[in-house]
Protein backbone atom coordinates (compact mmCIF):
# COMPACT_ATOMS: atom_id res chain seq x y z
CA UNK A 1 0.00 0.00 0.00
CA UNK A 2 2.99 2.31 0.17
CA UNK A 3 3.59 4.80 2.95
CA UNK A 4 1.26 7.32 4.49
CA UNK A 5 2.99 10.31 2.94
CA UNK A 6 1.25 12.71 5.29
CA UNK A 7 3.15 11.09 8.19
CA UNK A 8 6.67 11.85 7.01
CA UNK A 9 6.94 15.08 8.96
CA UNK A 10 6.24 17.46 6.08
CA UNK A 11 3.43 20.00 6.28
CA UNK A 12 2.04 19.27 2.81
CA UNK A 13 -0.73 21.85 3.22
CA UNK A 14 1.69 24.65 3.94
CA UNK A 15 1.23 27.75 1.84
CA UNK A 16 4.96 28.40 2.17
CA UNK A 17 7.64 26.51 0.26
CA UNK A 18 8.82 23.49 2.22
CA UNK A 19 12.41 23.45 0.98
CA UNK A 20 13.50 26.53 2.95
CA UNK A 21 13.03 24.68 6.22
CA UNK A 22 13.46 21.14 4.93
CA UNK A 23 15.11 19.23 7.75
CA UNK A 24 16.62 16.70 5.38
CA UNK A 25 15.58 13.31 4.02
CA UNK A 26 16.10 11.49 7.30
CA UNK A 27 14.58 13.94 9.73
CA UNK A 28 11.00 13.65 10.94
CA UNK A 29 10.36 17.33 11.15
CA UNK A 30 11.26 20.63 9.55
CA UNK A 31 14.43 22.47 10.50
CA UNK A 32 13.83 24.85 13.41
CA UNK A 33 14.73 28.55 13.19
CA UNK A 34 17.81 27.91 15.33
CA UNK A 35 18.98 25.20 12.91
CA UNK A 36 18.86 27.38 9.80
CA UNK A 37 21.96 29.44 8.99
CA UNK A 38 20.92 32.96 8.17
CA UNK A 39 22.83 35.91 6.65
CA UNK A 40 22.49 38.13 9.76
CA UNK A 41 24.43 41.43 9.88
CA UNK A 42 28.03 40.67 10.88
CA UNK A 43 27.63 42.83 14.03
CA UNK A 44 25.19 40.24 15.34
CA UNK A 45 28.00 37.68 15.46
CA UNK A 46 29.03 38.78 18.93
CA UNK A 47 30.55 35.44 19.92
Amino acid at each position, binding site marked *: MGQDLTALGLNLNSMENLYQ*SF*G*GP*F*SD*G*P*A*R*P*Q*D*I*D*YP*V*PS*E*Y*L*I*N
Partner: protein
Amino acid sequence: PLGPTPLQKDHQVQFQMMEAAYYHLPSPSDSERLRPYLQRQAIATPPHFPQTQLPHSDTIDFFQRLATETLFFVFYYMEGTKAQYLAAKALKKQSWRFHTKYMMWFQRHEEPKIINEEFEQGTYIYFDYEKWGQRKKEGFTFEYKYLE
Protein backbone atom coordinates in the same frame (compact mmCIF):
# COMPACT_ATOMS: atom_id res chain seq x y z
CA PRO B 1 5.47 -10.86 -13.63
CA LEU B 2 7.94 -8.55 -11.92
CA GLY B 3 8.39 -10.48 -8.72
CA PRO B 4 11.53 -10.35 -6.60
CA THR B 5 14.75 -11.21 -8.36
CA PRO B 6 18.04 -12.24 -6.74
CA LEU B 7 20.47 -9.32 -6.40
CA GLN B 8 23.30 -9.31 -8.85
CA LYS B 9 26.85 -9.43 -7.57
CA ASP B 10 27.55 -5.69 -7.72
CA HIS B 11 24.20 -4.91 -6.12
CA GLN B 12 25.06 -7.26 -3.27
CA VAL B 13 28.31 -5.36 -2.69
CA GLN B 14 26.40 -2.08 -2.78
CA PHE B 15 23.88 -3.50 -0.32
CA GLN B 16 26.61 -4.52 2.12
CA MET B 17 28.20 -1.07 1.98
CA MET B 18 24.80 0.56 2.50
CA GLU B 19 24.05 -1.74 5.42
CA ALA B 20 27.36 -0.75 7.02
CA ALA B 21 26.69 2.96 6.40
CA TYR B 22 23.26 2.48 7.98
CA TYR B 23 24.98 2.14 11.36
CA HIS B 24 26.63 5.54 11.29
CA LEU B 25 24.13 7.78 9.53
CA PRO B 26 24.67 11.48 8.99
CA SER B 27 22.91 13.56 11.64
CA PRO B 28 21.29 16.94 10.87
CA SER B 29 24.05 18.85 12.67
CA ASP B 30 26.61 17.38 10.25
CA SER B 31 25.18 19.80 7.69
CA GLU B 32 25.06 22.83 9.98
CA ARG B 33 27.73 25.28 11.01
CA LEU B 34 29.16 24.68 14.47
CA ARG B 35 27.10 26.62 16.97
CA PRO B 36 29.32 28.39 19.56
CA TYR B 37 26.81 27.82 22.36
CA LEU B 38 23.92 25.50 21.59
CA GLN B 39 25.09 22.68 19.36
CA ARG B 40 22.09 20.64 18.23
CA GLN B 41 21.86 17.64 20.51
CA ALA B 42 19.00 15.20 20.07
CA ILE B 43 17.99 14.17 23.58
CA ALA B 44 15.05 11.90 24.23
CA THR B 45 12.64 13.85 26.42
CA PRO B 46 9.63 12.33 28.17
CA PRO B 47 6.96 11.64 25.57
CA HIS B 48 4.53 14.04 27.24
CA PHE B 49 6.92 16.90 26.43
CA PRO B 50 6.06 18.55 23.07
CA GLN B 51 8.04 16.49 20.58
CA THR B 52 7.40 18.61 17.52
CA GLN B 53 7.78 22.30 16.86
CA LEU B 54 4.90 24.54 17.91
CA PRO B 55 2.95 25.61 14.83
CA HIS B 56 4.16 28.91 13.29
CA SER B 57 7.10 28.96 15.69
CA ASP B 58 9.26 30.21 12.84
CA THR B 59 7.28 33.42 12.37
CA ILE B 60 7.87 36.96 13.65
CA ASP B 61 4.40 36.94 15.30
CA PHE B 62 5.47 33.99 17.44
CA PHE B 63 8.71 35.71 18.43
CA GLN B 64 6.89 38.92 19.27
CA ARG B 65 4.99 37.11 21.96
CA LEU B 66 8.17 35.94 23.66
CA ALA B 67 9.41 37.73 26.79
CA THR B 68 12.24 40.24 26.33
CA GLU B 69 14.74 38.05 28.21
CA THR B 70 13.78 35.12 26.00
CA LEU B 71 14.42 37.17 22.89
CA PHE B 72 17.81 38.21 24.26
CA PHE B 73 18.59 34.60 25.04
CA VAL B 74 17.79 33.59 21.45
CA PHE B 75 19.72 36.56 20.09
CA TYR B 76 22.91 35.92 22.06
CA TYR B 77 22.91 32.10 22.11
CA MET B 78 21.70 31.24 18.62
CA GLU B 79 23.80 33.60 16.62
CA GLY B 80 24.04 33.27 12.85
CA THR B 81 20.67 31.55 12.60
CA LYS B 82 17.19 32.45 11.49
CA ALA B 83 16.16 32.42 15.15
CA GLN B 84 18.59 35.23 15.91
CA TYR B 85 17.27 37.17 12.95
CA LEU B 86 13.66 36.76 14.11
CA ALA B 87 14.57 37.65 17.71
CA ALA B 88 16.27 40.84 16.48
CA LYS B 89 13.18 41.78 14.50
CA ALA B 90 10.95 41.14 17.50
CA LEU B 91 13.21 43.26 19.76
CA LYS B 92 13.02 46.13 17.30
CA LYS B 93 9.24 45.86 17.33
CA GLN B 94 9.54 46.22 21.12
CA SER B 95 11.44 49.50 20.35
CA TRP B 96 14.90 48.16 21.21
CA ARG B 97 17.71 49.43 18.99
CA PHE B 98 20.94 47.58 18.20
CA HIS B 99 23.97 49.88 18.35
CA THR B 100 26.44 48.50 15.81
CA LYS B 101 29.42 50.31 17.34
CA TYR B 102 28.89 49.07 20.89
CA MET B 103 27.22 45.93 19.56
CA MET B 104 24.60 46.25 22.24
CA TRP B 105 20.85 46.67 22.43
CA PHE B 106 19.46 49.89 23.86
CA GLN B 107 15.99 51.12 24.62
CA ARG B 108 15.15 54.72 25.28
CA HIS B 109 14.10 54.97 28.94
CA GLU B 110 12.67 58.49 28.95
CA GLU B 111 12.62 61.53 26.65
CA PRO B 112 16.24 62.44 25.85
CA LYS B 113 17.59 65.80 27.19
CA ILE B 114 19.41 66.68 23.93
CA ILE B 115 18.43 65.70 20.38
CA ASN B 116 20.12 66.80 17.11
CA GLU B 117 20.94 65.31 13.67
CA GLU B 118 23.94 63.34 14.96
CA PHE B 119 22.86 62.04 18.30
CA GLU B 120 20.42 62.10 21.17
CA GLN B 121 21.58 62.10 24.77
CA GLY B 122 19.37 60.71 27.45
CA THR B 123 18.68 57.81 29.78
CA TYR B 124 18.70 54.44 28.14
CA ILE B 125 18.17 50.89 29.23
CA TYR B 126 20.63 48.38 27.87
CA PHE B 127 20.70 44.62 28.18
CA ASP B 128 23.68 43.44 30.13
CA TYR B 129 24.20 39.89 28.88
CA GLU B 130 26.86 39.16 31.41
CA LYS B 131 24.56 39.88 34.33
CA TRP B 132 21.57 38.91 32.20
CA GLY B 133 19.40 41.79 33.07
CA GLN B 134 18.35 45.23 31.96
CA ARG B 135 20.29 48.15 33.40
CA LYS B 136 19.98 51.90 33.10
CA LYS B 137 22.64 54.03 31.41
CA GLU B 138 22.44 57.68 32.41
CA GLY B 139 23.55 60.46 30.03
CA PHE B 140 24.25 58.00 27.22
CA THR B 141 24.63 59.45 23.74
CA PHE B 142 23.03 57.49 20.95
CA GLU B 143 24.84 58.31 17.70
CA TYR B 144 22.45 58.05 14.78
CA LYS B 145 25.18 56.95 12.35
CA TYR B 146 25.67 53.78 14.38
CA LEU B 147 21.98 53.10 14.70
CA GLU B 148 21.42 49.96 12.68
